């Protein structure tokens, strides 16, 4: 059998140009398929990692997915705000261990700004329960003295190249409108967070009071004409938050989650929604799943096209190799050897294509991975194929073998008809 394999190798090498092109097609198809799968599982992991330590998310009445996206992933905006009084009432619930108020809406160079409390940096968990760590500096103080202090995520620090004590300016909203910067109240970076692979990396953190301060002379999303309150003067105002966007809740005991959720959903003073992050994520994946499956199906089709090309190339070359097959039969090869030879050839090309595809994916992860992570928060790190990817690779190989048996079968019938004397 090893002899046969060696002959198959030599024969394939002899036709390396056509087979090489075929392998290249299979490689690209494999890269596409695995890339889609990796992006898919990467997105799920990143999302799940971002909510790993949170038991409930509470906000004004909205759909669970909307609330989840806005509060954890800074995508879109919540339908409405909730009052500080409601926040305090829920935080005081006996089952609640800790709670973090969130206030968002502003941005810095496209990065979302999150108003919260210093406890955020101690309470927030990502991945398998990992706490946030400072790469440099400290958390903002949350006092009036430290009103204009900011902490930035790794991505915010990395891309525009911010360092400690740099001064940054917040923009109202997503920063898409001109003259809507809070340029009169610049912030000083006092802390830079370690990379987490979650939306935290792309976030600028300030205190709740700071959010109030930069909006003192604003009303209804626009600056009041002719009103200007200098940064220092702002401290004299009442900066206690009146309304926040949402809150993250940690429970003393997870078993109480449904009870607290009911408490929030039945809240009298205003219409609120409490979301179990896992349930909301499942709901999100159900919505996104259709697109995912479509993308995966298209990739699978591309792989099928590549493998059909393999079968076609080997089949087309078969006629010119009838003499070769007859020689092998004359020295004792049986029809099953002929089938094995052709099947081995196709399988080798498939394997070579898959290996090249994996290399290509690794190269892509090395070169494009950081950019994709920066822009979409999607970690596409260099890694060995994971469970789902092995299944896909197995499927590609199995299909490749099937595609190789086709020319093998053709060669079988040819060699039965030709015997030792092919009529050429």
């Amino acid at each position, binding site marked *: 059998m090893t*002899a*046969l394999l060696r*002959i198959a190798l*030599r*024969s394939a*090498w*002899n036709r390396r140009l056509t087979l090489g092109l075929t392998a290249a097609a299979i490689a690209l198809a494999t890269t596409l398929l695995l890339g889609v799968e990796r992006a898919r599982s990467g997105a799920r992991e990143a999302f799940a990692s971002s909510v790993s330590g949170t038991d409930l998310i509470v906000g004004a009445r909205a759909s669970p997915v909307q609330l989840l996206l806005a509060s954890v992933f800074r995508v879109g905006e919540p339908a409405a705000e909730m009052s500080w009084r409601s926040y305090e009432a829920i935080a005081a619930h006996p089952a609640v261990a800790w709670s973090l108020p969130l206030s968002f809406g502003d941005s810095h160079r496209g990065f979302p700004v999150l108003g919260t409390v210093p406890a955020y940096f101690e309470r927030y968990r990502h991945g398998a329960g990992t706490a946030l760590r400072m790469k440099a500096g400290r958390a903002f103080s949350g006092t009036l003295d430290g009103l204009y202090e900011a902490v930035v995520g790794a991505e915010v620090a990395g891309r525009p190249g911010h360092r400690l004590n740099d001064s940054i300016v917040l923009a109202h909203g997503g920063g898409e409108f001109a003259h809507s910067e809070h340029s009169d109240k610049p912030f000083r970076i006092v802390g830079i967070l370690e990379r987490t692979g979650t939306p935290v990396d792309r976030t600028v953190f300030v205190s709740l009071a700071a959010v109030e301060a930069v909006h003192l002379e604003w009303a209804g999303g626009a600056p009041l004409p002719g009103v200007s309150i200098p940064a220092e003067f702002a401290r004299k105002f009442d900066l206690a938050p009146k309304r926040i966007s949402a809150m993250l809740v940690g429970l003393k005991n997870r078993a109480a989650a449904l009870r607290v959720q009911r408490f929030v959903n039945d809240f009298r003073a205003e219409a609120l929604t409490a979301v179990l992050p896992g349930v909301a994520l499942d709901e999100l994946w159900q919505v996104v799943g259709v697109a995912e499956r479509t993308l995966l199906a298209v990739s699978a089709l591309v792989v099928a096209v590549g493998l059909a090309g393999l079968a076609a190339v080997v089949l087309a070359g078969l006629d010119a190799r009838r*003499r*070769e097959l007859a*020689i*092998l*039969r*004359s*020295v*004792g*090869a*049986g*029809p*099953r*050897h002929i089938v094995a030879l052709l099947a081995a050839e196709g399988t080798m090309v498939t394997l070579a294509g898959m290996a090249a595809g994996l290399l290509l994916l690794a190269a892509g992860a090395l070169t494009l991975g950081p950019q994709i992570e920066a822009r979409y928060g999607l970690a596409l790190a260099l890694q060995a194929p994971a469970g789902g990817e092995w299944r896909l690779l197995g499927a590609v190989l199995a299909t490749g073998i099937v595609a190789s048996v086709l020319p093998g079968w053709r060669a079988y019938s040819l060699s039965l008809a030709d*015997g*030792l*004397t092919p009529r050429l």
Partner: protein
Amino acid sequence: MDQRVRGAASLNRAPAAAGDAAAGIAQAIELSAVRFRWRAQRSPCLSIAHFALASGERVFLHGESGSGKSTLLNLIAGVLLPEAGSLRVLDQELARLSGSARDRLRADHIGFVFQQFNLIPYLSVMENVLLALRFSPRRAARAGGGSRARAAEVARLLASLDLDPALQTRTAAELSVGQQQRVAVARALIGSPEIVIADEPTSSLDAVRQQAFMELLLEECGRAHAALLFVSHDLRLARHFGRCVAMADINLAEAGS
């Protein structure tokens, strides 16, 4: 399954029987009342009452194209099976062997030289000759225990066939037709098979080379005590052989295949 078991049993007997081929087996090939027809045809294209090739014998089989030569060769090789009659190769009734046992019998005991394109173009001369040992452990053992001994045997055969040792590492495609045919003879003879079948091996050579090739072929077959069945349409070559048989005489079927 039954057939395969029988085939394997017969195969186990084969080496022992062939080991003392010169003493024990009188006929290398023997056909009696053999008939063959292609599936679609009404009348048989081959019908041979009797034909035999004795051990170590050299026979010139004369036949024009279309006389059933190719069919006969494929039958003896065990690639085709006769519709009726008895076809024995080294005392083995081919029809009673399984397909893989027939492949094994061919690998172990028969060397082939064809008209042209005998070699696999992308393999070296050495590898082409060694190809004959790939499917036959028996011939591999006879050619020499280790790979070094086999390489030495290839070198010896090539040298005695008047081929420059430097050619061994060349690919077959780089050789002249005459050289290719001699490499094919080396492949047919390595591991000392009992039977060599040559199908028009000289028709692609010019007259001078034909003469030299015939002498080498006969000499080497003699040295290996191999029976030689030489098939050709060229009657001038018959003078090299003790016995000459015409396809037209043994094939009772109407000509044309």
